[in-house]
C-alpha cells in the first residue's frame, strides 16, 4: 500500500510536499489566541502563596488580612479545596511496586518542595491577587531536606513521605543473556559514571488555564494550554465529580509544550476548584519564576555503566545502573518513572549485542517533580551508549564509524527484538551511518582536525546513533490503568458548498498538525488543500483521542485522518454513482470534481453532489442515503511502537583556556518513515536538536543544599539563542512502517535524542589529546576546565 502514495505528479498530491502552514499567517499577524491572551466576562485571577522551604511542616495559616483586602474574592487553603477535589496518586500498575503519596491541589500539613503552592488568592486582577498573597501568613517548622540521591537512600535519612516509609519510589531490573559471562569473555572493558543535569522545557508561553464552572448547568469549561485536552476532561470530571459529558476542555493556540503541558499541576487543579467556589471564571498564568518552580523538570540521572567487547570490537555486553531523582512524589497521570524505564530499555538500542543488565532506582527528593519532557530518556541512553562505544573504539584503535558499523543491527536482522524487549520492525542504521559519513565529509574533517591540533586549536568530531520510540500503542500507558488514549478520532465532512472540514483529536502547537492533516485529507479525497479546514482541540467538538505526546500525531492521528478521508471518498462516490448512474468503482475525485477513473473526464462537481445530497435528496433513489460526514477512529495495531532511527554528527571547537565550546556544525540523518511535509519535519528536527544542544552545553536547574532552586529565571537559566547555534543540516532516509497505510512515524524527538550525545563525543574527541574527558552534561566551561586540570 505504501508505494501507492507520494506520487507528486498526481493532482491533489500533497503527502511528501513542503507546503506552508495555513494557520501560521494568523500567528504572524499577532492574531494568535493563546489562553494567556484570553478574557472571559466576570473573570477573576488567581495567585498562589508558595512555600519558601523545600521541606517543612505547616504550623498555621492566617488568611484574614488577605481576605479583607478590597478586590479579593476568595482566599482558599488546602483544606478548602480538599473538600471538592479527590487526591490523585501518580503510580501505574505496570510499574510493579512503585510508590507515591496522594496529592491535593494545595499543601495541607506539610510542604515537600520550595515553591509548592500553599494558599490560593482569587482577586479582580492578577496584581491585586499578588498583593493579597503577600498578606497571607504561613508559619512553618523546617524539616530535614533530602536533595542527594545517595543520602536519600541511606538508613536514617529523613523520609519525605512517612506513609511510604522509604525515599525509593521504584526499582527495576532488566536482564537478558549472560552479562557476567560476557564481561569475563571480553577483551576490552570501558566503565564510566555519567551525570545528567536537571533541566526543564521552558515553553515560551508559560502554563495557562481559565476554568469556568457554571453551577446552573453543572458544566465546567476549561480553556487550557495543554497537549492533552481529553485526558484533562477525564481528570477534571473524575477528581471534581463532574459528569464527563459536562466537562469541556478547549486547547486553543499553545505557546510550546514539549511534553511539559500534559501533566497534572497542583495550581491547575486548584483553579478548577477556585472557579467552583467563586462561581466565576478564574484565570491563572504562571509567571516565569513560577514556571521554573512548578513546571516539571526532567533528566537528573546518574548512570554507572560499563561495556565490553571482543578484540575485534564486537560488543559482547553492557551493564547499567541508573539512579534518578524525581522530586517528592511521582507525577500524575503518567508517573515520573517512565524516563528511567526508557533509559534502561533504550541502552544500546542500535546495536546487536545480547547480554544486558539494567538496574533502575527512582528516588524521592525535596525538589519539584520530574516527568516526561521531549525525548524522554533517549538522550541519557544515547549519551551513555555512544560514549562507551567510542571508548571501546579508542581502546581498540577503531574509528567511531567503524566500531559502529561492526555492531549495528543490519537489514538482514529484522524484525528484531532488543535484549530489553523492544521490537523493531525495520530500521536503517547502515544507510544513515553511510549518509552521515558522506555528508559531513568525514575524511576532510579528520585532516583539518589534525592540522589545527598542530596549531593548538582543539576541534572534535562526535557522532551518535539513536533509536526513538514513536506511535505508542496502549502498551505505553493504557495497560498500566491510565485513562490515556492511544487511539485517535477524525470527523471529516463535505460542506453543502463542497468544501471540507476535518475535526481531529490531535492538536496544533506549532508543529503543523493542521497542515499535515489538511494534506492527508485533501490528497485522499481528491480536493485542493486550500478547501480543507482542520479543527483541533475542543472536547465538545473534536472526537476523543490521545492527542499529542510521544511522537504520535503524524503516525496515529495522521493515519486516522487518512482512513477517514478514504471512507468519506467512498461515500461521496456512492452518491455520485447514483446521480450519474455509474459504478462507484468507475469514478474518482480530482480537484473536487467527480471524474471517470480511467480517463479523468469530469462528470459532476463535488459541490453539486453536496448540493443534491443536502438540499435535493428527493431526486435521489430511495435506497441512497448520502453520508457526507464520516466519523472514524484508529488505534495502532501490530508493533507496540513504531521505532525510528538515525545518527547525528557534531563538530566543535573547544577553547582549552576558557572552557568554552563553539558549535561549528551539526548534522542529523533521520528516518521517520513516510515524510508528510519535509519542511515541517526539518524544523521539528532542528528545534529538537537545539534542545539537546542546550542540555549539552547550557541548561541545568541548579539547586543548593537547602533545596532552593538557584537559577529560576531566564537570565540565569541559559537556553540556546540564535547566536550560539549553528545551521543544522538535515538528511532523510524513509523506511515507512507497514503497520499503517500512511507509513508515517514520529519525528519530534529525534533531534533531542542524540544531540547531547554527539556534542559530548565531539567535545571528548577535541580534548582527548590533552588526556581530558567529561561524562557530565551540561558541559559548562567550569566543568571543562576542571576536566582539563586548569581549575
Amino acid at each position, binding site marked *: 500500500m505504501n508505494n501507492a502514495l507520494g506520487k507528486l505528479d498526481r493532482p491533489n498530491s500533497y503527502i511528501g510536499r513542503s507546503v506552508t502552514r495555513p494557520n501560521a499567517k494568523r500567528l504572524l499577524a499577532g492574531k494568535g489566541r493563546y489562553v494567556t491572551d484570553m478574557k472571559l466576562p466576570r473573570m477573576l485571577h488567581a495567585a498562589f502563596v508558595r512555600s519558601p522551604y523545600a521541606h517543612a511542616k505547616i504550623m498555621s495559616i492566617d488568611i484574614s488580612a488577605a481576605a479583607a483586602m478590597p478586590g479579593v474574592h476568595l482566599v482558599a487553603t488546602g483544606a478548602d479545596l480538599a473538600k471538592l477535589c479527590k487526591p490523585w496518586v501518580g503510580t501505574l500498575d505496570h510499574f510493579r511496586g512503585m510508590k507515591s503519596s496522594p496529592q491535593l491541589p494545595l499543601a495541607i500539613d506539610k510542604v515537600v518542595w520550595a515553591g509548592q503552592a500553599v494558599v490560593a488568592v482569587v482577586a479582580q486582577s492578577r496584581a491585586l491577587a499578588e498583593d493579597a498573597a503577600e498578606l497571607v501568613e504561613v508559619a512553618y517548622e523546617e524539616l530535614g531536606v533530602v536533595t542527594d540521591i545517595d543520602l536519600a537512600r541511606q538508613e536514617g535519612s529523613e523520609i519525605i513521605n512517612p506513609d511510604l516509609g522509604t525515599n525509593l519510589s521504584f526499582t527495576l531490573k532488566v536482564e537478558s543473556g549472560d552479562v557476567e559471562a560476557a564481561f569475563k569473555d571480553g577483551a576490552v572493558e570501558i566503565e564510566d559514571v555519567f551525570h545528567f543535569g536537571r533541566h526543564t522545557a521552558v515553553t515560551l508561553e*508559560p502554563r495557562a488555564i481559565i476554568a469556568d464552572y457554571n453551577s446552573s448547568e453543572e458544566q465546567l469549561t476549561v480553556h487550557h494550554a495543554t497537549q492533552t485536552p481529553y485526558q484533562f476532561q477525564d481528570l477534571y470530571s473524575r477528581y471534581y465529580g463532574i459528569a464527563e459529558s459536562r466537562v469541556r476542555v478547549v486547547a486553543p493556540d499553545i505557546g510550546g509544550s*514539549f511534553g511539559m503541558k500534559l501533566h497534572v499541576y497542583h495550581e491547575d487543579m486548584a483553579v478548577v476548584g477556585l472557579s467552583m467556589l467563586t462561581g466565576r471564571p478564574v484565570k491563572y498564568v504562571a509567571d*516565569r519564576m513560577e514556571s521554573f518552580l512548578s513546571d516539571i523538570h526532567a533528566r537528573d540521572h546518574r548512570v554507572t555503566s560499563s561495556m565490553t567487547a571482543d578484540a575485534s570490537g564486537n560488543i559482547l555486553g553492557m551493564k547499567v545502573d541508573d539512579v534518578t531523582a524525581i522530586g517528592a512524589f511521582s507525577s500524575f497521570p503518567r508517573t515520573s518513572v517512565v524516563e528511567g524505564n526508557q533509559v534502561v530499555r533504550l541502552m544500546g538500542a542500535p546495536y546487536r549485542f545480547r547480554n544486558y543488565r539494567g538496574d533502575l532506582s527512582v528516588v524521592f527528593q525535596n525538589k519539584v517533580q520530574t516527568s516526561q519532557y521531549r525525548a524522554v530518556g533517549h538522550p541519557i541512553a544515547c549519551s551513555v551508549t555512544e560514549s562507551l562505544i567510542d571508548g571501546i573504539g579508542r581502546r581498540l584503535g577503531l574509528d567511531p564509524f567503524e566500531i559502529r558499523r561492526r555492531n549495528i543491527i543490519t537489514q538482514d536482522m529484522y524484525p528484531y527484538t532488543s535484549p530489553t524487549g523492544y521490537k523493531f520492525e525495520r530500521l536503517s542504521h547502515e544507510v544513515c551511518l553511510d549518509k552521515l559519513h558522506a555528508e559531513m565529509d568525514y575524511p576532510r574533517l579528520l585532516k583539518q582536525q589534525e592540522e589545527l591540533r598542530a596549531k593548538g586549536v582543539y576541534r572534535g568530531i562526535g557522532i551518535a546513533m539513536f533509536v526513538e520510540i514513536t506511535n505508542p500503542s496502549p502498551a505505553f500507558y493504557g495497560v498500566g490503568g491510565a485513562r490515556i488514549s492511544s487511539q485517535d478520532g477524525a470527523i471529516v465532512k463535505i460542506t453543502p458548498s463542497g468544501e471540507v472540514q476535518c475535526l481531529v483529536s490531535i492538536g496544533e502547537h506549532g*508543529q*503543523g498538525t493542521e497542515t499535515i492533516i489538511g494534506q492527508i485529507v485533501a490528497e485522499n479525497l481528491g480536493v485542493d488543500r486550500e478547501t480543507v479546514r482542520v479543527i483541533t482541540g475542543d472536547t465538545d467538538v473534536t472526537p476523543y483521542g490521545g492527542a499529542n505526546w510521544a511522537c504520535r500525531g503524524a503516525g496515529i492521528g495522521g493515519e486516522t485522518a487518512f482512513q477517514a478521508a478514504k471512507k468519506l471518498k467512498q461515500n461521496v462516490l456512492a452518491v455520485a454513482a447514483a446521480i450519474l448512474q455509474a459504478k462507484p468503482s468507475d469514478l474518482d475525485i480530482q480537484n473536487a470534481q467527480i471524474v471517470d477513473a480511467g480517463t479523468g473526464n469530469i462528470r459532476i462537481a463535488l459541490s453539486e453532489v453536496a448540493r443534491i445530497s443536502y438540499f435535493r435528496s428527493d431526486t435521489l433513489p430511495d435506497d441512497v442515503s448520502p453520508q457526507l460526514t464520516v466519523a472514524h477512529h484508529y488505534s495502532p495495531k501490530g508493533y507496540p511502537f513504531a521505532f525510528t532511527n538515525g545518527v547525528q554528527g557534531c563538530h566543535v571547537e573547544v577553547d582549552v583556556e576558557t572552557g568554552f565550546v563553539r558549535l561549528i556544525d551539526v548534522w542529523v540523518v533521520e528516518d521517520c518513515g513516510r515524510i508528510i511535509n519535509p*519542511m515541517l519535519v526539518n524544523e*521539528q528536527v532542528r528545534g529538537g536538536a*537545539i534542545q539537546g544542544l542546550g542540555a549539552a552545553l547550557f541548561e541545568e536547574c541548579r539547586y543548593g543544599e537547602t533545596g532552593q532552586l538557584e537559577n529560576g*529565571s531566564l537570565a540565569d537559566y541559559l*537556553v540556546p539563542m540564535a547566536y550560539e547555534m549553528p545551521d543544522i543540516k538535515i538528511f532523510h532516509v524513509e523506511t515507512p512502517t507497514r503497520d499503517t497505510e500512511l507509513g508515517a512515524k514520529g519525528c519530534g524527538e529525534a533531534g533531542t535524542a542524540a544531540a547531547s550525545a554527539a556534542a559530548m563525543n565531539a567535545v571528548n574527541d577535541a580534548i582527548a589529546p590533552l588526556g581530558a574527558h567529561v561524562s557530565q552534561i551540561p558541559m559548562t566551561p567550569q566543568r571543562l576546565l576542571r576536566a582539563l586540570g586548569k581549575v
Partner: protein
Amino acid sequence: MNERVPIELEVNGEAVAKYVEPRLSLADFLREELELTGTHQGCEMGACGACLVLLNGKAVHSCLMFAVQAHGDHVETVEGLSQRKAIADIQQAFHNNNALQCGFCTAGMLVTAHELLSRNTTPTRHEIRDGLSGNYCRCTGYQAIVDSIVSVARSRAGNVDTPASPGERGTAS
C-alpha cells in the same frame, strides 16, 4: 501606588488617553487595557524578547517599561506593523520558510527583524544571528528565521532570485 494617573500616547497611529496604575507595565497596558495581545510576555525581565515593541521607532522591551513612561510617545506593536504593511515581506518570508512554530515569540522576532533590516540592509547570517540574540525561540532551530531575514534583505535589494524555497534548505532526501 494603586492610584490611577492619566497618560496620553499614540499606539499604532491612534491617540490613546487612559488612566493607569503607575505600576502597570507597558506590556500589560498594551495587552490588557488595549487588547493588543500580539505582544507576549515570556520572562518579564527583558531576557526573551517576546514583548518587543517599537517605541518612537526603536525596539524596546515593553515588560521593562511602565506604561506611564510611554506618556507622549509613539508605540507600535505587531498589530500596527501588520496593519500598515510595514513588515508584510518579512511575514511572508517567515511563512514561506516556516520560521515559526507555536508563534508565541514571533511578534518579538518580527520587531527585531524589522529593526535589524532598517539598520543594516545587507546583514550576513552571522550578523542576523547576533541581532536575534535577544529573542528566544524554543520551537524552531532559529535557522528558518535567519533564512527568512536573509531572503527579505536580498529581495529588498532587488535581488529576488534567492528566497529559499520551502524544504530545500540544507536538506536531501
